[in-house]
């Protein structure tokens, strides 16, 4: 168990609910991931009359912590309105604050993000900001009241993994008190494990699972990888060496090298 915001949960994997081939596969994948926290959004009901009700009932049946997002917002004002609506709709003061500054990279806008964070913290929200790996931005978000920071690993949906591990490693070193979650860009279990090995507190992902050929298996894989990475971080990774070190003991090796017939072939 570990503490995120005001709650104790088991899993360090946070998972999204979008892009699955079917609601049933979504459910099975989320269960297989063993996640305790799932992200959702707010949208107009769709033209075909679907009112989100069946999705919502399905999701509620999983009995997980809900983390609504403000995906699609481009300004602090929009994001604040969306957050307020989310609080009423989902009955939670948690909000994944996502304000896009560029439509191609879906990069967070650091300026609007800080502005909205200040307002939402003042209104009692627990803000989970989707942010860049910019240390100065991250420090300002913490000063504004964030306990949790969610820097990107790579742009949303690219599956590139951690494109700037140096920056992420520095974030972890410099912000030991923050709850740090890599959000976006994870494409494979090895990426998720790498983030956890660095000491990140969690990983949030969606596309890599939902768009796998077999989302349920991939969800399970991601859950295992996050556990593996955390265990390894706690177990203390061996330091990387530049030169080889034998694993098998050399003491007690037979000295056969002086036999002429044993001469190496070179």
């Amino acid at each position, binding site marked *: 168990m570990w503490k995120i915001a005001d709650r104790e949960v088991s899993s360090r994997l946070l998972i*999204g*609910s*979008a*892009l*699955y081939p079917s609601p049933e596969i*979504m459910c099975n994948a989320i269960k297989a991931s063993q996640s305790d926290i799932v*992200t*959702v*959004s*707010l*949208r*107009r*009901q769709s033209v075909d*009359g679907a*009112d*989100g*009700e069946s*999705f*919502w009932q399905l*999701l509620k049946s999983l009995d997980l912590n809900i983390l*609504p*997002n403000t*995906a699609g917002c481009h300004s602090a*004002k*929009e994001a604040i*309105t969306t957050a*307020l*609506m*989310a609080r*009423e*709709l*989902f009955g939670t003061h948690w909000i994944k604050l996502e304000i896009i500054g560029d439509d191609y990279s879906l990069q967070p806008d650091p300026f609007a993000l800080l502005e909205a964070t200040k307002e939402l913290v003042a209104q009692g929200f627990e803000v989970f900001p989707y942010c860049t790996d910019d240390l100065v931005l991250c420090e300002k978000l913490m000063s504004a009241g964030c306990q949790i920071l969610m820097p990107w690993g790579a742009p*949303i949906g690219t599956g590139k993994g951690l494109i700037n591990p140096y920056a992420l490693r520095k974030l972890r070193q410099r912000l030991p008190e923050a709850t740090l979650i890599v959000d976006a860009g994870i494409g494979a279990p090895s990426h998720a494990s790498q983030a956890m090995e660095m000491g990140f507190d969690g990983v949030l992902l*969606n*596309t890599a699972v939902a768009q796998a050929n077999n989302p349920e298996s991939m969800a399970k894989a991601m859950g295992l990888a996050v556990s593996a990475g955390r265990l390894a971080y706690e177990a203390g990774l061996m330091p990387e060496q530049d030169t080889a070190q034998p694993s098998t003991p050399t003491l007690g090796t037979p000295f056969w090298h002086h036999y002429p017939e044993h001469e190496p072939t070179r």
Partner: protein
Amino acid sequence: MNIVLNGKAVEIPETANLQAFFESLNNEDAAITLPRQFAVAVNAQFVPRSQYPNIILQEGDDLELLVPMQGG
């Protein structure tokens, strides 16, 4: 009276407050079906549920009525 509901122009009776407007949507021949679970913004400002009786819609108001949806 004309307002914009989720991006589409709709005609509604005058002087309706939000509460009444939503109740009218439960009619079988309403423009849209009222979702069971939703949150509301009028002119991009959030309106809490408790305020529905107090909000009188105006000509040209922009009403957003959002429901739970998948998200990442």
